């Protein structure tokens, strides 16, 4: 057993030390234009050591799971910690947590380990067929489905011993349409932390049709204009806003660096309509874990409650520094990275407006749909792409235009929120912060003002 091997090595360590083991079993099937483009499966496994020597961390990892190599990563981590000690101003201290001995597994109705791969291959082939058949102007598509099955072990010199099995199933569709020298692409995704039952709850075929419809429609559309507009942000984009623009500012490592929220605990930072949460226990959330990668139990953390900033997201190190309890936000992408503060499932709580009601008092504006990638600075400035901008004229939805990048200061945008819809949805996302990770992003469509960067 791998944990026995790790335990044996752990005994030799001095000071605080963590050993993590991670085995990632992946399956991917991708069909491009009716032909199988990728049919992959494989395993990447390895272990890492993180050692705290006189307040200085050292880290080392390996894919070679032999006793000698495990002892070597412990030694390397130890000597890196020692070497960098004189260069560090602060001595790291950890907030104390009760060492846990526990096991956790993603609740699943259909465990992908127990199913053959044939049916998944034929599902993806069928979705591809429907997408290409949607319209004559669709020239190319890619339909992909993935299973990522993680086995994680966490052992510490404080005698924590946690094993978790986290299963994520997710898929996406990319569609390209061409017409009279114009080209347009559209993208949709589905997924959850769950077994294959996610395909019943959110069929990949529906995402395919949404994307096909959008690409097909936008190929002959103009690009949306530039300027400051009243907008409705679609539920899927609101999740992005919650994550990119606000969530990052509440990560304690960025707070420490002077982020927008640094001096805002107890103060108003958004419209009172806005309650924003990062929840590590969100059922089926893409970023859900029972324990984070420091062995801390995760929790539901309310960042903004009715417009008032309430809490930051912490690791053991930052919790100690800020004099609070760790929130279970220390996460690592895999065994090649030390845990850093990451969001889990971040969302803005739902409201009760219908889409028509949200549009009602907008004289001239846009309904922005389909999020693309985004970025944010810790002063709250953000930008992200949108795929489609539906014109709103005198409270009614009109023609579709090509989406553009939107930008602004998140907290200004949130202060301008005057209504939130009831079409709440939690979606899957990937977030990059030196290392990438799986996150959940949720919300309902909402109304605000936003700078759009169009080409007219």
């Amino acid at each position, binding site marked *: 057993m791998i944990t026995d091997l790790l335990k044996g090595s752990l005994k030799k360590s001095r000071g605080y030390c963590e050993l993590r083991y991670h085995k990632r079993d992946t399956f991917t099937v991708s069909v*491009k*234009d009716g*032909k*199988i483009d*990728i*049919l*992959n*499966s*494989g*395993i*990447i*496994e390895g272990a890492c050591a993180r050692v705290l020597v006189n307040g200085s961390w050292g*880290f*080392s*990892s*390996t*894919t*070679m*799971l032999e006793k000698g*190599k495990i002892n070597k*990563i412990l030694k*390397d*981590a130890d000597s*890196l*910690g020692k*070497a*960098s000690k004189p260069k*560090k*101003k602060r001595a790291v201290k950890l907030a104390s947590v009760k060492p846990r001995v526990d096991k956790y597994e993603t609740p699943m109705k259909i465990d992908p380990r127990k199913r053959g791969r*044939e049916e998944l*291959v034929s599902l993806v*082939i069928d979705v591809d067929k429907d997408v290409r058949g949607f319209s004559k102007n669709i*020239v*190319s598509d890619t339909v992909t489905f993935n299973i990522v099955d993680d086995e994680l072990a966490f052992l510490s010199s404080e005698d924590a011993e946690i094993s978790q099995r986290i299963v994520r199933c997710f898929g996406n569709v990319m569609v*390209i349409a*061409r017409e009279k020298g114009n*080209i347009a*692409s559209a993208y949709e995704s589905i997924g959850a932390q769950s077994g294959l039952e996610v395909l019943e709850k959110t069929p990949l075929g529906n995402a395919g049709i949404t994307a096909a419809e959008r690409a097909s429609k936008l190929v002959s559309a103009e690009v949306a204009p*530039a300027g400051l507009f009243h907008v409705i942000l679609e539920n899927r984009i609101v999740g992005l806003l919650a994550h990119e623009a606000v969530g990052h500012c509440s990560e304690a*490592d960025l707070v*420490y*660096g002077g982020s927008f929220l640094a001096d805002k605990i107890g103060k108003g930072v958004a419209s009172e309509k806005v309650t924003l949460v990062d929840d590590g226990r969100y059922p089926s959330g893409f970023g859900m874990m029972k324990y984070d990668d420091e062995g801390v139990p995760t929790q539901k953390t309310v960042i903004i409650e009715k417009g008032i900033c309430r809490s930051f997201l912490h690791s053991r190190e930052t919790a100690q520094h800020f004099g609070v309890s760790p929130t279970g936000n220390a996460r690592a992408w895999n065994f*090649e*990275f*030390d845990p*850093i503060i990451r969001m889990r499932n971040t969302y803005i709580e739902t409201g009760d407006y219908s889409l028509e009601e949200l549009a009602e008092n907008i004289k001239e504006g846009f309904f922005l749909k389909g999020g693309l*990638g985004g970025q944010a*600075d*810790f002063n709250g400035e953000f*930008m*992200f*792409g949108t795929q489609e901008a539906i014109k709103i004229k005198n409270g009614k939805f009109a023609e579709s235009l090509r989406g*553009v*990048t939107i*930008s*602004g200061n998140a907290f200004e945008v949130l202060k301008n929120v005057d209504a939130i819809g009831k079409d709440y949805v939690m979606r899957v996302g990937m977030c990059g912060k030196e290392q990438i990770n799986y996150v959940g992003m949720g919300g309902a469509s909402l109304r605000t003002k936003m*700078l759009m*960067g*169009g*080409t007219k």
Partner: protein
Amino acid sequence: MSLTDFTRLALKHCEKAGADEAEAFVQSQQTIEVVLERAEIQSERIKTQRGIGIRIIKDKKLGFVFSSTLSRSTIEEACRNAQSLANVSIPNPDWVSLPTPAKLPKSPSGIYDEETANMGGNEVLKLAMRAYDEAKGYDKRVDIDDGKFSIFLNEVAISNSHGVEAEEKTTLLQGYIICVAKEYGEISSMAFEYDVARSLKEFSPEKIGRLSAEKALASLKPKAVKSFVGKVILDSDPAATVLIQPIISSVNADNAQRGRSLWAGKRGEEVASKRLTITDDGLFPKGIGSSSFDFEGVPHQKTPVITGGKLEGFLHNSFTANKEDKKSTGNAHRDGYNMLPSIFVSNLVVAAGKKKLEDIISGVDKGIVVRRFSGNVRLESGEFSGIAKQASYVEKGEIKYPLKETMISGNAFQAIKNIIEIGSETHPTFLKAYVPPILIDKVNIVSK
């Protein structure tokens, strides 16, 4: 066992499992990295990883399996799994063959550096500190937000059942720093600077530190400018993101064959300004993407992409080349042993012009300079829109002041037809493209 011993072993098991064709790719990588955050050293990591990717073809059906464990038993099991995946696949009528052996060119000069290969954690730490000290020492108002310095020692081996066999070692150093400047409670936008090189001698952490600090200071006290349509000088990094990225996507033969490229069927046509000449050169001396072969073991070469604005051709791996009965251009790419080969540039070299950046600026009557771009670029259509970071307003040939929250938008395919000037200083970028600053016209410059 050497890496090639593992690839050979895999081929043997694939043959036993009944494959028509097979390919094994083994990678071994040692990485040392130092991460700076909030003006401090955040983490140092030593990472060792190895792994194998096995591609099997049976009756035109493809299976691919990877594993991070290199042992006789795991390789045997992986080959059996690849075969059973191929069994549940469907035949691809476009499949012709894996590449056949060809004589490999000599290893490009300067892609492996013994000094870099021998560096330990302490040495990488010193590199990071050199950049750190330079930035902090440059001006009291400068703070380091984050940064990362990494060195890589990379070895790959490829064998296939047609007799292709190749093995090579490379080194790479990479570093970036993001600085902010603080003055009277005002925080500048984040200024990013990086460098990448194959050898320690070519790598300058001081330059990274100094330039990043300079950029942060230069963006203090920003002002807004009224929206206008006009000239934008894109520094190397934003030029790569905004203009070169859509080009890379459009000259990808797979995209062209699938109608995902606006340039499909346009070989020989004028697609850009006469000033633009681009070559893909897998043998570029000291190039960050240089090696003697691509990730299918096909010899690297020099491939003209755009000459004087005219589209010369597309970049192929063996699959797309076979589809058109052509020879692969040696552009098979993998992000790791766990990925099937796709297509990417080796080193995309944009031919330099004659003017230095300052001289380009002095020739602009009204426009802006953009040193970083944070936004979206639609690769197929070329539409781009996003925030111009570390941007300054230029009037009568002079930089007047830094710009506040300004967005730029336009279309890359239009923009490359409106190139007014290409700079003389080419920098390597993260896209494996060597790009000089580029002055374009008719861009929307939008402010609140």
